[in-house]
């Protein structure tokens, strides 16, 4: 069944003017790369979001020292190229091999995939933190005053009043950040990770057929457009209570 389906797909692929034989040879690798790309983005965006919540709140509410530290973190990761950050972690970690060995983390930093995930996570946490900061600042002061008047504690106020409104405000930019991360994840291919672009570069180095880059372009475009459209739908639905009711 699967073989028949695969054969049918290849026939269609050939009819579209693409090289079906090339696809049969390298296609599976590129599909594996797609899963790697999706895994990279899913892990780093999720963990990055969990880090960004306290970061964004600390940027607004923190004391002078906390704020300065958070701002330094955010400025560093937003002001330098992601590629340089990846190099810093991936190659730089080797210099601290003994220390990392001592705490049992060398196994993690030796692996390119983990280095890339760690860098992407910190990078997107900085960007998402700024979005959350902006969201928190946009919530009217009266909201937290009213919550205080109702006897809610500060933590409760944040969880039930401020953050939900801040996130509704930040939903659209968070979607943009997700799209940017999908694109940026291709940088992983520079340090030997076989994501979509990594697998494509491998196929190109073997076949010298430029067509493989066009497959990669198609994959990224479909991926980005799908995520963008689905996210827009979700955003419209999640913020439907904020729009004036249609008559």
């Amino acid at each position: 069944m699967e073989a028949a389906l695969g054969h049918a797909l290849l026939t269609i692929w050939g009819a579209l003017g693409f090289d079906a034989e090339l696809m049969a040879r390298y296609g599976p690798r590129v599909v594996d790369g797609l899963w790697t790309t999706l895994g990279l983005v899913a892990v780093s965006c999720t963990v990055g979001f969990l880090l960004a919540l306290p970061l964004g709140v600390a940027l607004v509410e923190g004391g002078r020292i906390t704020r300065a530290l958070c701002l330094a973190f955010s400025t560093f990761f937003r002001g330098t190229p992601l590629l340089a950050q990846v190099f810093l972690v991936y190659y730089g970690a080797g210099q601290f091999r003994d220390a990392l060995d001592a705490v049992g983390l060398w196994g993690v930093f030796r692996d390119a995939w983990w280095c890339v995930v760690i860098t992407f996570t910190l990078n997107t946490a900085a960007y998402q933190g700024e979005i959350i900061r902006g969201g928190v600042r946009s919530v009217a002061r009266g909201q937290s005053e009213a919550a205080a008047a109702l006897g809610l504690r500060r933590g409760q106020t944040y969880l039930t009043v401020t953050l939900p409104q801040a996130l509704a405000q930040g939903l659209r930019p968070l979607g943009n950040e997700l799209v940017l991360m999908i694109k940026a994840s291709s940088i992983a291919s520079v340090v030997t990770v076989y994501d979509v672009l990594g697998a494509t570069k491998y196929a190109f180095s073997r076949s010298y057929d430029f067509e493989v880059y066009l497959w990669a372009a198609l994959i990224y475009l479909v991926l980005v457009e799908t995520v963008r459209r689905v996210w827009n739908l979700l955003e419209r639905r999640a913020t439907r209570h904020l729009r004036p009711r249609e008559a």
Partner: protein
Amino acid sequence: MTDLFALLSFGSEGWGDDLARGVAVTVALAIATLPLGLALGLGVALLKNAKGRVARGLGELYTTVFRGLPELLTILIVAFGAPRLIAALTGATVEINSFVAGVVALGLVFGAFSSEVLLAAIRAVPKGQSESAAALGLPRRLAFRLVVFPQLWRVALPGLSNTWLVLLKDTSLVSVIALADLTRQTNLAVNATKQPFFFYLVACLLYLALSGLSTAIARWLEARADRGFAAAGR
């Protein structure tokens, strides 16, 4: 520690001059990309603002493609694809140097992002402005330069400076096709000295300094563009 800083000295011993050359290439690449990117951005913005369906569709298609493709992939496609395209069209074999490939690829991306900014700015200037300029007898060109452009520019500046900052960081990707920019020069220093953490940190700080400088210039330009508006009491 002092040994590390000795590595940054200028001359045959240290890597200071090599990194400085890298910074110069990075800045030159970004500045060379700017006119191409802005011209493409303006062209695409006008397409998207056009009345015709086909023109608008083309504008949207351009933006979707070059905003959606990873910048690294765009660079590789231009670097490897352009010589093939030229060979297929003219039969001539040409080598495209990595600086030119970088300018073209980053310019295409800059055009996609800046077209959105410029489109919003074009739409932000009310039609009455150019109409009243015409009523006062200003020729169309002069009306654009004296009346419409200063207002458009003011709205577009913050968005354009953001796009510029993204471009500045994206230049590091061109190191992948062997352009001797800051990132590539740092790679060379790391290979020779085996001090990756120190050198990549220095490179990051240099990029940070370039971003800081750009932000300061953008603030100054914005303050200048706001001159006529400051009195309106915001």
